[in-house]
């Protein structure tokens, strides 16, 4: 995918989803932690609609019976439309995160290449061909540029590793004795 396409994805996320790329990142992390996208919609104090989009492709929508029975059809339709709009927005966070990571790595490579090339040309002009290699190996600018370019694939691997860790650990294994941590088991 081209950087322009990535920028377009980010701009679309920025315009469509409230909260922009920060919300996109938070949604993606929540997706990994819960292994599902969870969107709840309230009508008054009660949760009346809840949709889970699971990683295995299952979508489960829970509806509160008393709300369904007692609410006028128009009101149900309006709230339902907004609810599923939110589900779609939450899912759109993922491509934005991928675009962010891709752009980040491409930016690192570009910065490294520009800085390294500039430094190499400057060194060549200064020392000529004869001792160019040894001069480049001793030049901090050149070495930093190479390191910057090497960092790009590392960054991508680190993000992948971190997301896997989130997915694996998720919401389990919480210390049940810690105050405010974890959730109570059903009686």
């Amino acid at each position: 995918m081209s950087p322009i396409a990535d920028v377009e994805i980010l701009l679309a996320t920025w315009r469509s989803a409230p909260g922009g790329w920060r919300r996109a990142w938070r949604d993606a992390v929540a997706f990994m932690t819960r292994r599902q996208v969870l969107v709840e919609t309230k009508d008054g104090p009660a949760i009346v609609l809840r949709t889970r989009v699971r990683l295995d492709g299952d979508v489960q929508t829970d509806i509160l019976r008393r709300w369904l029975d007692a609410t006028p059809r128009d009101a149900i339709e309006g709230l339902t439309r907004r609810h599923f709009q939110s589900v779609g927005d939450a899912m759109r966070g993922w491509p934005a995160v991928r675009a962010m990571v891709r752009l980040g790595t491409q930016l690192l490579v570009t910065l490294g290449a520009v800085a390294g090339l500039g430094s190499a040309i400057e060194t060549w002009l200064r020392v000529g061909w004869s001792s160019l290699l040894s001069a480049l190996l001793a030049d901090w600018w050149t070495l930093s540029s190479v390191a910057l370019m090497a960092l790009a694939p590392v960054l991508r691997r680190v993000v992948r590793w971190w997301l896997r860790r989130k997915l694996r650990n998720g919401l389990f294994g919480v210390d049940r004795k810690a105050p405010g941590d974890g959730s109570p088991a059903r009686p």
Partner: protein
Amino acid sequence: MASFDLTETARSLLTMEANTIVRDNMTGEPMPPLPHALLDIAGDYAGLLCAIGVDLPAYFATPRRDPVTFDPGLVDNAGSVSDLTVSVDTFDRLRWAAKHALGARNPRITPARRILLDRIVNNSDAIKEMFKRFDASLDQFKDKSRAELVAMTIRRSSYAVPVDDLIQLQKMWDIGMEEIVAQTIVHITGDITTRVQSRLGQPGSEALFAIHRQSIDVSVACWRYLLDVIREIAGTTIQALIGRSR
């Protein structure tokens, strides 16, 4: 440490399932730690079996009898079971209790309950298989009751479970013993199957159907994103699997 394998999850992405459930109440609680979640699932199953009239205490009585050959039948005032534990034995006994109830000729076994009993049999079998895959880190919780688990400190890093199993368990915990009023399965080949409860054919169910239809629309729209997610975090084997299937 459990290996990171999303093969089953990637395979299940070849079909999408949209379920609509009508609940009497909704709380926002997330799934608890795995040992508690297993006991929640077992408790839900035991609750339904007792409500139907299965003599569950007889299945869990000491000395334990072989549940395969032991069928005490349905009773009028079935007692509850308090000694459910995180074990294969618990899910095996629940499984056989549900299986025997399915074979009973009794008006209490309605078509809707038959589906729930089938779910107990299938999910109990799936959980029994998961126990074979659980590594030694979960041994500390095996055969523990709820009271014993509550007395323990369960830490985030104290056990590991295969991710595919976690996803499956989460679904079992989420759905519990709720009746699915409408279900649509979309296959990657384009086949679509929809099942609805017969009572939904009556007037007044339009709003429910409209919600289910929007749920299907969202499912299909999200499909590409889910493939992207799996491709990004899974290994090259799964990337090849998804690549072939697209």
